[in-house]
Structure formats: structure tokens, C-alpha cells
């Protein structure tokens, strides 16, 4: 339990988000383009973090379905920014898994010429921290 609590704290720290500010309006879910692909919906992310149920988050499909388009961040009236929470949960999982990251020299080879710029940017946002 206490480790779950720690994990929740860690997510808050990484994301810089205060989930207590959420007023449960659901605008994040209303706006999410990947909503149907997700098992845990964007607005639920907030309550999962609040309740410290991080394992469920870590094992959710949603974690990898989020496009990091940040529409929810943009539209959230309370500055809770669920997208950042998802991002942070992803970070947490990746860090726990350890050496799964790319070495800088591997990157140019992997880059596809036709890769949309937006996707790169999105990946950038996702992994920059």
C-alpha cells in the first residue's frame, strides 16, 4: 500500500499535476480522440491516481493508447491535465522496466523519412523528461 502511495506521489511529482483540482467534469474524456481504444478513460486516470491504484494504471491498455495529443491538457478547465498524468505513469513504467530506452546513436537509423513530424513531436513530449 505504501509503495502504491509512493508511486502515486511519484506520478504527481513527474507530472506536476495536482489531481485534487479535478472537478470531475469529464471534458478530458469528451475530447479524447483515443477514447474508444482505452480501457481506463482519461477522466478516470485522475481518480486512479487519487486512489493510489497505480498498478491498474500501469497494466492498462490506455497507457500505450494515449496519443499525447494533449487535447485534454488544452481543454481541461481546472488545469488538472490528465495527459500529463498518463505521461507520468508511462514514465514510471518505463523507468521500472529499466534499460528499454534507445541509445542516441541508434536513433537516426530507426527514423523513417515518411514519419509525420507530429508523431516525432509527440514522442518528444512523451520522453523528454
Amino acid at each position, binding site marked *: 500500500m505504501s509503495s502504491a502511495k509512493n508511486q502515486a506521489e511519484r506520478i504527481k511529482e513527474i507530472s506536476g499535476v495536482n489531481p485534487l483540482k479535478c*472537478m*470531475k467534469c*469529464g*471534458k478530458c474524456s*469528451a475530447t479524447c480522440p483515443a477514447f474508444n481504444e482505452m480501457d481506463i478513460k482519461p*477522466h478516470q486516470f485522475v481518480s486512479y491516481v487519487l486512489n493510489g491504484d497505480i498498478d491498474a494504471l500501469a497494466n492498462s491498455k490506455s497507457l500505450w493508447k494515449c496519443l499525447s495529443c494533449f487535447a485534454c491538457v488544452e481543454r481541461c478547465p*481546472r488545469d488538472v491535465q490528465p495527459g500529463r498524468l498518463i505521461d507520468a505513469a508511462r514514465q514510471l513504467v518505463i523507468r521500472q522496466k529499466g534499460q528499454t530506452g534507445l541509445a542516441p546513436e541508434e536513433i537516426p537509423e530507426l527514423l523513417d523519412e515518411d514519419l509525420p513530424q507530429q508523431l516525432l513531436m509527440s514522442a518528444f513530449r512523451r520522453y523528454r523528461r
Partner: protein
Amino acid sequence: MQRIGVFVCHCGSNIAATVDVKKVVEMVAMEPGVVHAEDYQYMCSEAGQAKIAEAVKEKNLTGIVVCSCSPRMHENTFRTAAKRAGINPYMVEIANIREHCSWIHKNVEEATEKAVILARAAIAKVNLNAPLFPGESRVTKRALVIGGGIAGIQTALDIADAGYEVDIVEKTPSIGGRMSQLDKTFPTLDCSACILTPKMVEAAAHEKITIYTYSEVEKVSGFVGDFTVDIRKKARSVDANKCTGCGVCQEKCPSKKAPSEFNRGLNTRSAIYTPFAQAIPNVPVIDRDACIKFKTGKCGVCEKVCQAGAIDYTQQDEIVTQKYGAIVVATGFDTIKLDNYDEYAYNQSKDVITSLELERIMNAAGPTKGHLERLSDGKHPHEIVFVQCVGSRCSDNRGKSYCSKICCMYTAKHAMLIRDKYPDVNVTVFYIDVRTPGKNFDEFYRRAVEEYGVNYVKGQVGKVIPQPNGKLLVQGSDLLDNKQIFKEADMVVLATAIEPEASVRQIATMLTASIDTNNFLTEAHPKLRPVESPTAGVFLSGVCQGPKDIPETVAQAGAAAVKAIGLLAKDKLTTNPCTAKADELMCNGCSTCANVCPYGAISYEEKEVNDHGIRETRRIAVVNNALCQGCGACTVTCPSGAMDLQGFSNRQIIAEVDAICR
């Protein structure tokens, strides 16, 4: 040396839980001048005050320090108690050990130490206090109401009925305000105009009420009981004494392209216009920006058709200067601009409208003559979506942090009225919470759901996407079903947040009334003095103080009126004795102080003085106590330190500084 009594209040556990009051008593008893120190559960209580009186008598006190809550709370209580005990009320000082100490600190040792220091500062000050005696100032028995909406009208009527003269200043060409734009009112579904118009007529007909429409407050000077106000009567270009209100000019006016303010710009009006049919006064104004005569010099149709010869193109703005004893602010509200909310497509589609615009569409005098139709193509809608909390409850910087309060109820009203009149129309309301505190309010909302079949969806709308076929694709969430909903709507109505009318900031500045970051005027006390501004003589009526519906507005308007009447009923006011005073022997007569006085309270006299045997005539600053409000600007600007502020003298403040820093 004073004989000072120190009284330390427990305030129940509010103070005593964090401050060791016994220790405070023990410590302050050793301070110079202190001859008595005690603590008590509630100093502000009858029994607490009796303790003060007792100590004054027994110990022959000349000064009192109460360590308690903020002086803004009970300074007056203890001053009055001192007066009853036979001490000058201005020999009392308060050490604020609650708001500034016990409530913000947790560590008892630390809080106690601070409380002792605060008490010492107050003791050091009282040691230098001198008895002060309030003066008197007169009260002009006339009130000014700024804003001619329902709040202003009600306040004016109540004050006038009590027998005092009232002037209403309204910015637009007619009184009536936002309420005149509403179609029906919740929760009774009365026709808004039907209940408002009689009040407007009553105000216009009242012998004690003077209405200045198309006018603005330009300048305010003076203070409680004796304000002087300049009112700018903008040029109507129509002689109100001659105009019969026949309306021919408006009919014949060839310029009809100006957006109608009354109809929220949904249709247009003529350049010469009255905002609406029941306008009071029923005298049109010429909008000089739209008028062909003013723009090109050619036209003059209205002048030709006016039988009464009332058109006057040469009319100039006029300044009316009037004295008032009390001023009531009733400036009302507007809806916020939606420029920051692109996701709702308000600026992209004519069929996305605000609720206030819907009021006009539903109204028989509105742009669609009361028929519910899409503004884009005039077609009858079949699917309408309401979006709640648009710009309200937002802690980002796009909207307002507060709840606009009226939207839940008017949306229920709109939904119900639409379902009632057009049963073929589906109505969906996306809500975050439905807030219905108020008499018969929740019942009203439940009727919308249960009797009228309005579809309430718990969730917010994320995006409104105009479709090529003219429909609006609404993307929202249904949190209870945990679904994302896509709905094709014909119209989308946004419950847009309300904000104080923009001009209120300027008015607040003129009145020196405090205003918060949302531009709502601040009340003197949020609970106990909700209709008074902290600035004496200024009262608050209606939404300028905070969001409220019509019954609340009317109630508050009445309350503001009563407060104003209470003031006007007095013949004299006692003035604050904490005024500036120049030391004759030190004054250079240099006029520097008069340069910074905001009240013009300082003048100069050639005065014969006796400066330690040297008799000579000197130019000396003299402060008018009735005008001086005691800000102290002069005291700091005075190079010689001749000017001092009674009750906050240089020596007193320095004594406080010393006590804190020692």
C-alpha cells in the same frame, strides 16, 4: 505614563488552543505602563466587557489593550466598552493575536512568543495615545444609484418610498437592464417584461426619482454623507421635452444596419432608436456612429418626419453636478467573451449561441419574433444541446474561477420551455453538477427531467464540430455510462459565464471602493455586512457584488436601500478623529502637503505664532477635519515632520517598530 490594562481573549479555543494566554498575561504584566492584565474566555461578550469596566474603575486605567481578533472585527466593540467605562474610546488598541497569530501558527511556543510581541507593540502604542474626539459632518439627503437594471430600480424605489430623493444613472438609453432582455423567469415562468415593466414605470413616475439615461458617472469626490458627483448626460440628439415617442423617426430612418445591442447583435436596428418597445424614457437616441447625417452631413430624414421638432443634431454632452449622501452601485453583469473557447465553435457557427441570445430568440420581440429557429438558415431545429459551465468554474486563465450560479436554473427553464412549446425537439443538457439551492428550484429542475423529458447527461462537451450539412457534431462524455457521445445537433446553447459589467472597475476607482480580481465589488464583511462596501457611504446592489438571480438581486437591492436610508436618515455623521494635524511651530508653510492631499483638506493661513518668545506671522498648514480622511500622505511628504496623523502618529508607529524589533 499611562495606566494600561491588558485583556487577553481566549476566543474559546480559537486563540487559546495555539497561544498560551496565561503566559501572555504573565509577560505583558511586566511591560512599562501596564498596571493590570487578565485573560478571559470571550472578551467581546457582555461579561468580558464588564471585566474591562471593572478594571477601569478599580485600577484607574487610562489606556486599554485588548489581545483578541482583528481590530476590523471588534475594535468598535471595545471602543464602545471603553467609552461606557469612562475612558476615551481612542485610548484602546487591539493586538490581533487571532487572524495574525493563533490561526496561522501551529507551534504553541512560537505563537505565544509572537502574541506577546504583538501585545507589546500595542502597549507601546497606547502609551503614546491621546484622547481623540470625533467631529461632525453633514448628510446630503439624496442618494445616487449607478445602474438602472432591476437592482438599481428596486433600490431607487425603496429609497424614494422612504421619502428621499434618488437619482438613477443608466449608461444605455433606457432603464431595465439585463432583466428586460429575458423572456421568462425561473422558477415560476413569469414573463420577465410583465413583472419588470410596471417597476420601470413606477420608477419613472415617482416624484422622488430622477432618471438619467444615456448618462455616465464621470467624477466622484467627497466622502460619506457628502459626495459630489459629475454625471455626463451624453447627447441624445433628441429633445426629450419635445419628443412624443411616436416612433416614426425609427421607422423612416434609412440607416438600419447597426447591430441591436438589446438583441445581442442578432439583428439590426436603425441609427435613431429606442432599445426596445417598453423603453423608459420612450425617447430615442441617435447613434452618431451609425447615423448618415453625422457621418456624411446629408440625410436629416428623422428631422423632417418628426412632427414635434424634437430632433436636435447640435445637442452636446452635458455635465450635471449633484451632491449625494449615499451611493449605491448596481452596475450588473454581462456574459464573458468566448474568444478563448474555440472548441465550442461559437465564432464559427451562427447556430452556436449563448443562453442570453436564446432568451432573445425565444422572446416575441426578438430577432425571430419568438420562433425557435436556427439563425443560419431559419430552419426549425430538432436536436438542441445545452452545454453547462462554459467559462465558469475554470481555474485555467481562459474563464472564471467562480460558479455563475444562475445557469443551472435558466437552462432547466429553457429546456422546459422548448419541450413545452415544441415537443418534437430533443433537448440534451451536458452538465457537471446541477446546482439548485433555492426555494422550489430543485423541484423545477426535476420537472424538466421527469415531466418534460429533458435528457440530462453527466459530463462535459469537449468539442463542437460544424458539419458540411449544417449540423453541429457535439462530442461529449457521459461519465455515468463511461462513454464518449457524439450527437448531431441543430443548435448548441452555451451557458456562458457571467462577469461584472466592465465599467464597474472605473466606477470602483472613482468611489475608492475595493474590488476583487474578478471585478466583483468587495463587501465590508462577507457575512455580516454583505451589502456595504468597505468605503463608507457606498452600498452594493445586485450582481456587481457577486452572481445572483432575480429574487436574490431584488432582496439585496432592498437591503442596500435600507442601509442607504439608515444613512440618509441621520442629520449629522460623526467623523473619524484620526486626522492629520500640523504642528504650528514646525510647519514651514511650504505647501508640499497640500500637493498630495486627495481631499483638498489642507489650506494655509497667515497665523501669528509664538515660537519660544519669537512672535511672528507665519504661513501655516491647517487641516479641515471634516474633509481629512486620515490617509497620512501629507505626514510623509512633510519635510519637517510638522504634519502628523492623530491615532497613527510618528512616535506611535516608531514605538510599535521598536517593540517588534527589540
